[in-house]
C-alpha cells in the first residue's frame, strides 16, 4: 500500500480514502420537536444541542487533515463518531477500501463496525486512559489491539509490539511495566503504538499532545510525523493549537458551534483566514 501511495503522490493524483457527508449529532431533549437550529447550535424551540451539524469533507490517501476549534466546537465528537464511539443522528461516511466505498459505514451492524475499528482504523484519545488499559503492560496493550485484529501467532505479536514500542521511544526496560506507572507522555506514546499496531489506513488523533510539556510535545509530534510519512497513513488530528496543526497538517478545517466555518491549506488559514471566528482564533495566538 505504501508503494501505491508514493506512486500516486508522484503523479500528483489525489486518491480519496474517506468521504464524510452531512454528519450530524443532536443531543435531543424532545424527540417530537422539529429542531430549529437557525440561530446557532441550540434549538430555539426545545433547547436540544447539535454538537455536530452537517459536517462534510473528504480525506485523501496519505493526507493529514487537522480540525481546529475551541472546546465545545464539536471537533472531538466528530472524531468519536468516525471511530463509532458515538452514534450520529444522521449523516454518512464512506471508506474507499470498504465495499468499494459504496456502503455507508453507519449502516453496518456492530460486528462489522468493530472489525472496521480493529482492522482499518487507529485512535489516539486525548486522555490516555481512554485508549490503553492501566492494569496491563505496555507490550500487553499493543498486543491487545493485535489480538483484536485477529493476530494469533504469539511470536509475531511479541515482535510487532516490541517494534512499535521502540519506534515510539519507550525504553526497553519499561516494555513489561504496567502503564499505570507511566508518565503522561509515555502513556501517550504507548497509545500511539497501539493505534498503529494493525497498520491502519486511517489514524484519528484527538488532541494527542494537549497537557504535555513543550519538549515532550515536540518529540511526540516529530514521532507522529515521521511514522505518518513513512507509512503514508491518512490522518485526522483534532487540536485547539494552530502551532500543532501547522506542524503536521496539509489542510486545516475550522469548526465553531458544531459546524465547519472554513477549511483550506494550512498556511492559507493561518495567513489569510476568511471567517470572523478564525480571525479571532488566529489573532489570539501568542507571539
Amino acid at each position, binding site marked *: 500500500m505504501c508503494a501505491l501511495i*508514493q*506512486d500516486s*503522490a*508522484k503523479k*500528483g*493524483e*489525489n486518491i480519496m480514502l474517506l468521504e464524510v457527508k452531512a454528519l450530524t449529532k443532536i443531543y435531543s431533549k424532545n424527540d417530537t420537536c422539529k429542531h430549529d437550529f437557525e440561530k446557532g447550535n441550540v434549538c430555539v424551540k426545545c433547547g436540544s444541542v447539535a454538537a455536530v451539524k452537517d459536517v462534510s469533507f473528504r480525506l*485523501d490517501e496519505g*493526507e493529514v487533515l487537522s480540525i481546529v476549534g475551541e472546546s465545545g466546537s464539536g471537533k472531538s465528537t466528530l472524531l468519536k463518531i468516525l471511530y463509532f464511539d458515538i452514534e450520529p443522528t444522521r449523516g454518512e461516511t464512506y471508506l474507499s477500501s470498504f465495499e468499494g466505498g459504496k456502503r455507508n459505514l453507519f449502516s453496518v451492524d456492530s460486528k462489522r463496525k468493530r472489525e472496521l475499528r480493529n482492522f482499518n482504523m487507529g485512535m489516539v484519545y486525548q486522555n490516555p486512559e481512554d485508549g490503553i488499559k492501566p492494569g496491563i503492560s505496555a507490550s500487553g496493550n499493543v498486543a491487545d489491539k493485535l489480538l483484536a485484529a485477529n493476530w494469533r501467532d504469539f511470536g509475531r505479536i511479541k515482535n510487532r509490539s516490541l517494534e512499535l514500542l521502540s519506534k515510539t521511544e519507550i525504553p526497553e526496560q519499561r516494555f513489561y511495566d504496567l502503564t499505570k506507572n507511566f508518565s503522561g507522555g509515555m502513556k501517550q506514546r504507548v497509545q500511539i503504538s497501539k493505534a498503529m499496531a494493525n497498520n491502519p489506513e486511517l489514524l484519528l488523533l484527538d488532541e494527542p499532545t494537549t497537557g504535555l510539556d513543550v519538549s515532550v510535545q*515536540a*518529540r511526540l*509530534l*516529530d514521532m507522529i510525523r515521521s511514522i505518518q*510519512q513513512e507509512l503514508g497513513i491518512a490522518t485526522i488530528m483534532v487540536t485547539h493549537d494552530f502551532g500543532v496543526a501547522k*506542524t503536521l497538517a*496539509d*489542510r486545516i478545517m475550522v469548526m465553531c458551534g458544531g459546524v465547519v466555518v472554513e*477549511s*483550506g*491549506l494550512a*498556511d*492559507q488559514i493561518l*495567513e*489569510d483566514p*476568511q*471567517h*470572523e471566528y478564525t*480571525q*479571532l482564533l488566529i*489573532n489570539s495566538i501568542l507571539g
Partner: protein
Amino acid sequence: MVLEIKDLRKTFTMHAIGKQLTALNGVSFSANEGEFIGIMGKSGSGKSTLLKCIYRTCLPTAGSIIYHNIDLTKAKDNEIIALRRKEIGYVSQFLRVIPRVTTVDVVAEPLIWKGYTREKARDEASYLLRKLEIKEELLNAYPTTFSGGEKQRVNLARAIISRPSLLLLDEPTSALDAESSKKVVEMMLKLKQEGTTILGTFHNTEILKKTSDRIFFMKNGCIEKTGKTHEILEMI
C-alpha cells in the same frame, strides 16, 4: 506560456475592526518558460501578496491565475498541494522551521515526495547545501538556531531542490552577505537556463541587473511601470 494573470484583486477583510484593506488592485501579466521577472516597489505596494495569491497562501478576491491551463484560483486544495510538491516552489522572507528536523532532512523532504529513497534524497540535499556554502557541521543540526542568512539559504534549497517549473521568491536575499548572494544568483541563473520561470521581489537592484529579463514596478496594488530590466532601472 507558463503563467497568465488577469485582473487579479485581493482585499483583506478584518472582521474585528470592520475594515477592508485592498492589497491588489487589478494586476495582469504573463510569463514565459525560463523568464525571470523582478518585482520592485515600496513595502505595502502588494509585492508579497501577489506571490502569496499565486501560491494560495492568500485567497484572491477576483481575477484569474492560469498556470499551464489550470486556473489556480479555482483549483481544489488537494490539487494545489500536489502542484506545490511537484512544480511550484516558494521562498518566503521567513523560514518556517520544522521542530526537530535537521537541515538536510528539511531540504530532502521534497525529493522524498517525488519518490526518491531517503538516502538518495539526503545525498542530493547535502550536495545542494554545500554548494550554497552551508557549513558542514550545520548539515545535521536543527536550523532553529541558525542565523538569518543561513535560514534563508536552507529555505531556498528546499524550494529549488525538486527543480520547480515556477519559482516564487519573496526577498530571498535580504539577509545574505555579498558572497552568499553571489552563490544564490548563480543558482537562479542555472535554474532559469533549465527552464524554470522565476518571479521574485528584490530590493537589491544589483541582483536584478544580473538576473531579471523584465521588471514590474508596483505601487498601490497595481503594476505601475513595466519594461526591460535596464529601462526600469534607468527610470528609478
